[in-house]
Each structure stands twice: as C-alpha cells, then as structure tokens.
C-alpha cells in the first residue's frame, strides 16, 4: 500500500483509528459528554476526508476493497446518517439513563462496518463488513438491558441474523467451488462459463442472506419486532445505515458479477420485489405503532428498490437503473432518517408519545409544530408526494422501470404506493387532529436537535424541488 492508496482509503482509516482512540479515552476517563463530542468530531473529520477529491477512476486497495465515486458517495451518506443518529441519541440516552460510552462506540463500530461494506468488492470483505455491522447491531438493539422487549428484539435479531449469515456463507462457498474466486468481477467472468445450476444456487443463497438483512418478504418476519423493541435512535440507524450499506454492496455484487445473465436470479429478485411491495404495504395498514409501521413500510421500500436492481442489466446501458437505485437509496435514507429523528425527539421521561403509539401523537401539530412538520414531511416523502425527495426517487424508479418495460413490477409499485398512502395519511391525520386534553408538552429541544430537524426538513424539500445539483454530483461520481 502506498501513500495514494492510504489517501484514497482515508475515511475508513480515520474512522478505524478514531474508534481505537475513543476506546482509549473511555478507558482513561469516563465522561459521556466528551465521548459524545469526540465521536461527532470523528464522524465530521471522516466526512471531510470523503470530500477531498480523489482520483477519478476506481482504485483497488487489496483484492478486497475498491475506492471509487460510488463508494465515496455511500460512505458520505452513511457518515451523515450516523452523525444524525448520534446527535439524536443524546436525548434518548439522557432519558433512559443509559451508559453513553459503549453506546457511542458501538454506533461508530457499526458505521465502520457499513463503510467497509460499501467499499467491498469481494465476498470476504462483504462478510467482514456485514459481521462488524451485525455484531454491533445485536448489542445496540438490546442496549436497554432492563427492558424485556429490547432483549427479545436483540435476541431475535441475533439468532435470525446469524442463521442468515450462515446461509450466505454456504452460498459463498458454493460460488467459490464453482468459480474458484470470491472477487465480484472475477466471479462474473467465471460465472459465464461455470456450471450454471450449481453456482446459481450459490448466488441464490447469498441473495437470501442479504434479503434477510434487507428484510425482503419472505425473510421479513423479524422486522416489526426488532423495529419496535430497539431504542428509537437505534431503529433509525438500523433502517438507514445498515440497509443502505448492505444494499449498496448488493448492488455492486449484482452488477460486477453480471448476475443479470442468470434468469433464475432475476426471476427470484422479481418475486422478492413484488412480494415485498405488496405484503409490506398490506401489513403496514393495520399497525398502530409508528415504529412497526415504519418497519413494514421499509419492507415495501426495499421492494421498490429491487426494481432498480432488476432493470440494471436489462436496458442497453443500464445507466437509468443504476441512477435510480442510487437516488432511491438517498431519498429513502433522508426520509427515514427524518422520520426517526422526529420520533426520537419525542422520547423523554414519561412522555406518552415515546411509545410511538399512533394515538399518543394526536394533536402533535399544535403542541410541537416543528417535530410534527418533520414527521409529516418525511411521511409525505416516503409516500412519494411531489416536492419531496421521495418523489424524485420514485420518479427515477418508474422511469427506469418503463425504460426496461417491466410492467408487472410497475403495477405492483403503483398498487403498493396506493395502499401506502392510506397508512401514511392516517398518521398525518392523527397529527393534525385536535390535541387530547392533558397531553404533556415535551421539554425544550436542544439546539443541536433543532438544527438537525430544520436541516432534515430543508434537505427533503430542497432535494425534491431542485434535484439538479444532486444529479450533477452523481454524474460526476458514478
């Protein structure tokens, strides 16, 4: 590794060194404020490294990792999401009286895993990233050790996630047996001439493992329970950082290994997509808890995203599919982050709304306009209403789908979106309904949270109204 490689990998390296430094700091002196500030600084520093313009072409760092515009873009996105999560967590930690040090450390470690994932170009790297991310997540989900529901969620995620990783490993082994390599693009070359049925099963098993982490139907069973049981900021983290990083890795694997040539894989993806879009939205209809609702809706969103993946190789240049996937990931991350930031803002001692039950949010518009506005904007964005970033994402998806003429997927998308309007709107209706008597006012928000709220609202609306700067950025990076 020479200096240029180190420079290219700077965000990852900074993050790694920083984590060790913070670990030492905690060992030397336990001060939660200091740890928190250091962690935020570290994320900001790492993000600064992402901004330093690197070489235009992709650079292989060992056979495991690759640094290119794509990896930089998603590193940036993951870091921003982690930053927002950490700022928002402060309130929850204070309300819960939980230990800050380890929590911050685990968030940073999970972020590290996610950054490894978006750089990976080798199944081994993918597995490494997945496990660093996953192991941190188990602990984070069960962080409130005295709450049975959190322990249950953590255990559920631990058992099912390990099982899915095992399946993924087995699939990787089959792929290795069939092609003699674990690198994505080498695998693509070898796949073209390998025993098709044998390796296709391997690819399907890897896909199943990843589908579990993305909570695609029928691998979605864990989602609502874990979403509900985990602390709200951790749920937000799981829904954004974890899913985005895994999807980014899946996208790279799917594209580099030219999996589009294997009709069985494409058919399986189509089935997963349609099932996720319909089942996710239908199950969300009956949810009274906002975290569960967002859990089911995220299943549907991952289903929408698969459309972009499927059309990736179908059109002549595949540009639209790729752009659509990236846009939708950005839109999904920003909107979901905004929704969970709003929910986290409600968490404080004895506040009824902290349970995230829908009725507890009645009249939030008149009690806490800023948080209600944030939640409304994020839900409208998830529903894909114009002027929000979610609409641009959906616009891209539909455009890519039309270009590739995958009509059955598009019909499922339209159906799913039509269903989803109902449950998103019901929440907005509740927010706008008259306040219940005796509903308590939350203590004033910290300046940091207010700033995050305002910037999230601005981001959702600005990117929805003026997508051109982002489109230009993507054109330069991808």
């Amino acid at each position: 590794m020479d200096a240029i490689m180190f420079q290219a990998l700077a965000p990852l390296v900074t993050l790694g060194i920083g984590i060790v430094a913070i670990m030492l700091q905690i060992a030397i002196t336990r001060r939660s404020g200091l740890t928190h500030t250091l962690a935020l600084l570290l994320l900001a520093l790492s993000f600064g490294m992402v901004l330093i313009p690197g070489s235009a072409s992709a650079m292989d760092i060992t056979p495991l990792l690759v640094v290119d515009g794509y990896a930089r873009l998603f590193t940036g996105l993951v870091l921003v999401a982690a930053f927002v999560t950490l700022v928002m967590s402060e309130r929850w930690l204070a309300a819960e009286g939980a230990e800050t040090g380890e929590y911050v450390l685990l968030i940073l470690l999970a972020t590290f895993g996610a950054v490894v994932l978006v750089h990976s170009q080798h199944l081994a790297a993918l597995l490494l990233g997945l496990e660093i991310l996953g192991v941190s997540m188990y602990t984070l989900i069960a962080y409130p050790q005295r709450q049975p529901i959190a322990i249950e969620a953590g255990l559920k995620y631990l058992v099912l996630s390990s099982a899915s990783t095992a399946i993924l490993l087995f699939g990787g082994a089959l792929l290795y047996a069939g092609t003699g390599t674990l690198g994505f693009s080498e695998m693509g070359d070898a796949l073209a001439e390998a025993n098709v049925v044998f390796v296709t099963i391997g690819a399907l098993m890897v896909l199943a493992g990843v589908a579990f982490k993305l909570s695609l139907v029928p691998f979605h069973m864990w989602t609502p329970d874990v979403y509900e049981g985990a602390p709200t900021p951790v749920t937000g983290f799981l829904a954004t950082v974890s899913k985005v990083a895994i999807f980014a890795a899946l996208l790279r694997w799917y594209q580099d290994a030219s999996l589009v040539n294997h009709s069985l894989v494409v058919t399986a993806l189509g089935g997963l997509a349609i099932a996720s879009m319909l089942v996710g939205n239908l199950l969300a209809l009956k949810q009274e808890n906002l975290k569960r609702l967002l859990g089911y809706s995220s299943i549907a969103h991952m289903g929408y995203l698969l459309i972009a993946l499927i059309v990736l190789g179908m059109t002549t240049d595949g540009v639209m599919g790729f752009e659509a996937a990236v846009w939708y990931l950005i839109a999904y991350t920003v909107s979901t982050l905004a929704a969970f930031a709003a929910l986290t803002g409600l968490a404080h001692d004895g506040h009824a709304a902290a349970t995230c039950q829908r009725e507890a949010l009645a009249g939030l518009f008149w009690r806490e306009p800023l948080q209600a506005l944030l939640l409304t904007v994020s839900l409208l964005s998830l529903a894909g209403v114009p002027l929000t970033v979610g609409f641009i994402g959906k616009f891209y998806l539909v455009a890519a789908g039309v270009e590739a003429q995958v009509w059955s997927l598009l019909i499922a998308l339209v159906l799913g979106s039509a269903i989803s309007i109902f449950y998103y709107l019901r929440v907005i209706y509740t927010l706008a309904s008259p306040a219940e008597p005796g509903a308590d006012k939350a203590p004033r928000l910290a300046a940091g949270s207010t700033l995050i709220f305002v910037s999230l609202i601005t981001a959702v609306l600005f990117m929805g109204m003026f997508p051109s700067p982002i489109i230009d950025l993507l054109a330069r990076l991808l």
Partner: protein
Amino acid sequence: MSLLLMLLLVGGAIAWYSERFGKELPAKIAIVVLLMAIGFFAYLIRPVLGADSSVSDGLGFWLLVESHVWIPRFGITFSLAMDGMSLLLVGLTLLLGVVAVIASWSEIDMRAGFFHANLLWTLAGTVGVFLAVDLFLFFLFWEVMLVPMYLLIAIWGHEGRAKASMKFFIFTQSSGLLMLLAILTTAVAYVTATGEWSFSYMDWLDQPLTGPIATWVFVGFLLAFLVKLPAFPFHSWLPDAHTQAPTAGSVILAGVLLKTGAYGLLRFGVPLFPDAANTLSTPLLIIGVVGVLYGAVLAFGQQDFKRLVAYSSVSHMGFVLLGIFAWNTLAWSGAVLQMIAHGLSTAALFMIAGALQHRLHTRKLEAMGGLWRVMPRMGAMAMFFVIASVGMPGLGNFMAEFLILAGLFQAWPLLCAVAAIALVTGAVYGLSLLQQAFHGPVAEVNKSLPDLHWRDMLALGALVIGLLVLGLYPQPVIDLVMPTLNAISTMAGS
C-alpha cells in the same frame, strides 16, 4: 405567470404567520392577496385581450408563454403557458378564491391562519395545473394541490371528515400514480424516438405516440382525469368530500378542482392521443350519459343539502364529458362554458349551504323549510342559483348545456335525446331542494336567524353577474377559447 403563483404561495405563508396578531387578520390578508392576484392577472392579460397579437407572435393559440430550465437531466422545464381556455379557468379560480374566503369568514374559529394558508396553496396548485405545459410540472401541481385540500377537509371538515378526506386523497393520488406511469411511458417513447428527454407538451405534440401503447397511455391519463371529473364509476369520493369539507373547501372543490379533470382531458388527453381517444369515445359517451342521469336521480333522493348539490355536480360534469367526446368544436365550447358556469353556480350553492349550516347547525332538509320568510335575501339568491343550475334559458348553464347537446346531436342524436332527459330531472331535484328548504312552514327554532351579510351578498352578486353574462352574451368567451379548440380540432383530425 410564475409571479402569480409565487404571490399565492407567499401570501399563504404570510396569512399563516399573521394568525398570531389577530383572529380576523388571516382572512383579510387572504382577501388582499387574492385581490392583488386578480389585479396582477388582469395586468398580465391586458395586452392580449382584444388584439389578436398572439397569432402574429408565432405562438399559435397561446397568449403568453414562459419557460425556465429546471432539471436538464430529463429535459424538464418550468414552463407555463396561457391560452383562452386556461385564461378563463385561472380567472374562475381566483374569483372563486375570493368567494371561498368570504364564505368562511365567520365559520373558521380554529387555526384561521393555517386554514387560509392551505386555501391559498390549493389555489396556487390549481392555477399551476391550468398553466403548466410541461407534463412533469403538470403532474407536480396536480398532486401538490391535493395536500392542502386534504388538510382543509381533514382539519376543518364536519363530523365524517376522517373517512371523507382519506377517500378523496386515495382516489386522486392512486389515479395520479397511473398518470405518472403514463407520462413516463410517453417520455421514454419520446427519448427512444428522438434521443433526448423532454416533458414539454409542445414537443410531445410534434412527436405523437402511436400504436397500441398509445391506448394504454391514454387510459392512464384518462383514469386520473375521470376520477377528478368525476365520471360515473369513479365518483364515490365526491359526495363525501363535498359534504364533509368546510364551506370554502366545498366551494373550491366543486368550483375549480373538478375542472382540472375536464381541462386535462381537453388539453392533454385529446390532442396527445387523438386516435386512442377517438376509439374509446363510445364507451366514454355512455359513461357520460350514465353519469348525467345517475347523478340526477341520486341528487333527488338526498336529504342533505350539500350531498344533493354534490350529486348534481356529478350530473353536470357528465355533460362536460359528453361535450368533450362529442368530438366537435361546438360541443367543446359548450364543455368549456359548462366548466365555468357550473363552477359559478355550484360555488354559490355550496356557499349558501355553508351559510345554512352555520346558522342551523345541520344540513338536513327536514330541519329547514319556510326559510324564505326568515332570510329573504338568502332565499332569493338560492332560487337564482338553483334555477341557473337546472338550466334556465338566459343563464350560463343553459347556454353551456345547449351547446353540448347541439354538438352531440350532430354525431349521436340518440344519445343526445337520452342526455336531454337530465334537463327535466334537474328541474325536479332543483325545485324539490328549493321547496323543502325555503318554502312551507317555518320551524319555531328557525324564526330569528340572521340573513346574509353584505359581504356574502357582494360575493354572490359577482357570481350572479357572471352567470348572466355567460347566459346572455357568451360570444366573447367563446371567441376566447375558439382558437384553442380549433387547434385541438386540427390535432385531433376531426
């Protein structure tokens, strides 16, 4: 023209903010903003009225055009254009905006600022729909105007508002998604044909879509427009939404929002996909006739003042559908007239319904009766608008329905005869409404109700004048839309 939109949007924000300085301030600000908008609108169209400068400018039937680059990646522009048809509809929107604010002057006592903000934003969205000539922009306005309208119904609506507002949003939004699919299919076809992205209406006219795909795309557009219109099987959201909305909401909904569907059909549906539209015209005409009669019959059966007017809208908008698919300029001009006349008369009726509800706290016709003696001004106004809406000669609605039927007769004499029955049924439900509410004995509790305020009389008076002008001398209006209709006729190849 973008300034006009900006004025309404910013005005809404100011009205919202002004809430904290006084209870009546938002309404006053809304009125001022709307009057400014009308003034600005008059200033905009001043040079184009009277002179036929447009033709010499090479704009065709367009009177004003405006375009800004927006999202170059997809060739999306912020393009607005106004022709005679959109001029009339924008004028109608602004006028009914004023009426809506006056109608809800004393009705809204909760969050008045936010109410007027939503009202102005809905109007901005509607004006945008009537002006947009970039299909992406059109879709954007189409969807965005729903959100404030939804909030108007959901927050300030009557007892059944939860269900009504939800139904309204889901119907329109899901049909809108199909339209998005249709728009993108056309755009992708355009890219395939020319190598460049464009969502511009004018570009699409130059590169018409052909083949079986055109029919499917047309159906996508059609469903969105039919839901909004609303046409017969897709109308079930309308009675609920109209009945549960606050007065201003009903006025805007019936007065202008329904017109966006008809406008969309005439502006985009027919010219962009003439063959598909022509093939489907028979079933659509039948849907229109069914809507006309079915709406009338249901209206007769209603015991709720607003519901009755709402079903009569289904009937009247069925006429618009008939006019559009009668496929000649005579019927089209009738359809445009009907949009305006129905907008004026129904807005007035909903305003009266709102005033009654405000005084009686019910919309049930049984609880009314003999109100003419108590409130003579309201009674006279109600009579004028009821007979206008049932098609009394000399008033706008008659002229419109006459033109539609005359146009329809040329192509479909039998269908025309069936549709003409509606003129009779219309009289039946109209007069029954009048009789039950304003004639007969007065209930004891209703004896001391206050009559209409002078503000209300002013607003209703403006609508009366509008209907009289349309009914007695409609030629200027027809002249205004004729260039557009002739152009559409050429494009449609009829």
